[in-house]
């Protein structure tokens, strides 16, 4: 099979650490259906990209696992002496885990169903295919080892071989690790001694604190609380999401639980909507937060607003405008002419006219039309007062008290009057 572009980029990253190839590889990885979805974002984590690229190449069937190469490089063909010479008690990995976990001997039976050691080691070490071998050497549960070996080695049932540490296990490891010539000897010692494996894992994974990873797997502390919901809601960081997804993929129970959790929200939402209908929740919320009257608005005074509007607008006279629109349906009745009196005396009219004339004539002498110098103004009270214009009055002298202020005001216009304004009790 020829190499595709993704494999080219991944090889560059794995071998040369080519940073320029990372973006291209990430873009292709996102849409490559050969890669499990939870692993399509492993290159987003800048830590150990070469290891991740190598693992991805292995998934794609290209290249060899670094661990396998490390095992071959480390183990070589002369491991028997090492294996026999180093009992399990002296295994560095076992010692490290034991140092972390204390003196408690963790039995494989207890951890059989719960310890995702394989995923933990794989996540830390970068798809170390011999993780199960290590876990098995440390005495952890067999089903996990079986599952890990199956995952790493393909459809090889090596459970019995692992338990019995027989040749089938060796074959499985060989299938997983590639040309690991010492697989058999290594796997023979799986149950007793694993110094080459430990070295290989350590060399491949670098300074991996396996103990921490294993312990985290033991107590489930590597994933945050509520991680399953976080997977559904995409709230987990990418690395944690990959870890969680891997765990779910490996466990049918977890998968079923995840499916149920995903559908629970939908069922719950539908039930609430069906039950609540179109209910306004404000009244209940208002009362719950201490608002006695949900419709009341603090500081609002409708009466004050009305009074302010009336004060601003003033009185509105609509009568004139209404009457302008009113159409009278009939003409106003005209006055009926008065009948002419039969006993009218024309002499009476003449006498009245004469009397009026006399009154007018003799009344002229009491009316002063234009007062002029030399003639006193008639005593007519206020209506008869004529105010001096500006050229008819002059203030010759003006004094006032210390606690008063006086101003002389002259109006404008032809009939302007002079006003002497006294402001008592005020000083300038």
């Amino acid at each position, binding site marked *: 099979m020829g190499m595709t572009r993704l494999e080219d980029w991944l090889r560059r990253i794995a071998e040369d650490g080519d940073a320029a190839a990372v973006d291209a590889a990430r873009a292709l990885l996102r849409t490559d259906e050969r890669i499990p979805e939870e692993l399509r974002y492993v290159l987003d984590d800048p830590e150990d990209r070469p290891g991740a690229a190598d693992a991805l190449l292995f998934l794609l069937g290209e290249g060899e696992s670094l661990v396998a190469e490390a095992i071959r490089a480390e183990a070589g063909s002369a491991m028997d002496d090492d294996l026999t010479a180093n009992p399990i008690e002296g295994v560095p990995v076992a010692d490290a885990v034991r140092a972390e976990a204390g003196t408690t001997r963790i039995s494989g039976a207890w951890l059989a169903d719960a310890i995702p050691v394989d995923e933990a080691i794989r996540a830390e070490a970068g798809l170390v295919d011999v993780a199960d071998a290590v876990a098995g050497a440390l005495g952890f549960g067999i089903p996990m080892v079986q599952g890990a070996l199956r995952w790493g080695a393909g459809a090889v049932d090596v459970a019995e071989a692992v338990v019995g540490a027989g040749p089938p296990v060796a074959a499985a490891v060989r299938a997983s690790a590639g040309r690991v010539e010492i697989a058999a000897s290594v796997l023979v010692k799986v149950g007793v001694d694993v110094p080459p494996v430990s070295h290989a894992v350590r060399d491949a994974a670098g300074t991996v604190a396996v103990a921490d990873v294993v312990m985290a797997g033991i107590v489930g502390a590597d994933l945050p609380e509520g991680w399953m919901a976080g997977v559904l809601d995409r709230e987990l960081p990418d690395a944690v999401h990959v870890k969680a997804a891997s765990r779910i993929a490996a466990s049918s129970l977890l998968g079923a639980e995840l499916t149920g959790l995903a559908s629970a929200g939908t069922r719950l939402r539908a039930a609430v909507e069906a039950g609540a209908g179109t209910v306004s929740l404000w009244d209940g919320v208002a009362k719950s937060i201490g608002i006695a009257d949900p419709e009341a608005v603090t500081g609002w005074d409708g009466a004050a607003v009305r009074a302010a509007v009336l004060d601003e607008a003033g009185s509105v006279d609509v009568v004139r405008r209404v009457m302008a629109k009113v159409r009278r349906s009939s003409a106003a009745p005209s006055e009926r002419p008065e009948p002419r009196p039969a006993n009218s005396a*024309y*002499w009476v*009219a*003449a*006498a009245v*006219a*004469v009397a*009026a*004339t*006399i009154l*007018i*004539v003799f009344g*002229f*002498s009491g009316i002063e039309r234009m*007062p002029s*110098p*030399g*003639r*006193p*103004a008639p*005593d007519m*009270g*206020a*209506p*008869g*007062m*004529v*105010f*001096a214009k500006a050229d*008819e*009055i*002059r*203030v*010759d*002298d*003006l*004094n*006032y*008290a210390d606690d*008063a202020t*006086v101003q002389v*005001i002259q*109006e404008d216009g032809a*009939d302007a*009057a*002079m*006003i*002497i*304004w*006294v*402001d*008592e*009790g005020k000083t300038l």
Partner: protein
Amino acid sequence: MIRRFSLYLATAAMLVISAPALAGPPGPPPVNPARVAEPKEGEPKKVTGKVQIEILCVRATNTTSNVDPKLQGIMQHLRILKYKGFDLIDEHDSEVSSGHDVSFDIEGGRKLQVELLDVNDVQAKIRMRMFSGKGSSPTLDTTVSVHRNRAFIVAGPKMEGDDVLILPVRVKY
């Protein structure tokens, strides 16, 4: 016919009787108490005798917009004082001769003293002093030369609330 004749007669009578009134001014004016001295050529003529000092006491307020009907003739001068209502509360009238003074008791315990300093046929010179009643020194002491039969206004003394007193003053002779 008789009817028409009566009407014509009444009309003619009206015309005859009113002819003098329509033709010219009425007869000689009333007796002037101030005798006019013989003036020099071009100079105002000295006036001897008494003149009449007339003072109105008007209360200006903003608590009401009622205007005393007696003040309608001078409202055009009172409106500039920015008050809505005016009430004529008192009137004072007294004669004074040249060199003498006359006092008026006005609202708020005040006293207005008017002294006639000089008078001729054109104008009168008066000294007006207003005492607030709190001390012997006047609040206002002014000397004004005002044309004959003309008026001016003294205003501003405070009354209850925010009301003020307005005093139109006229010298008549």
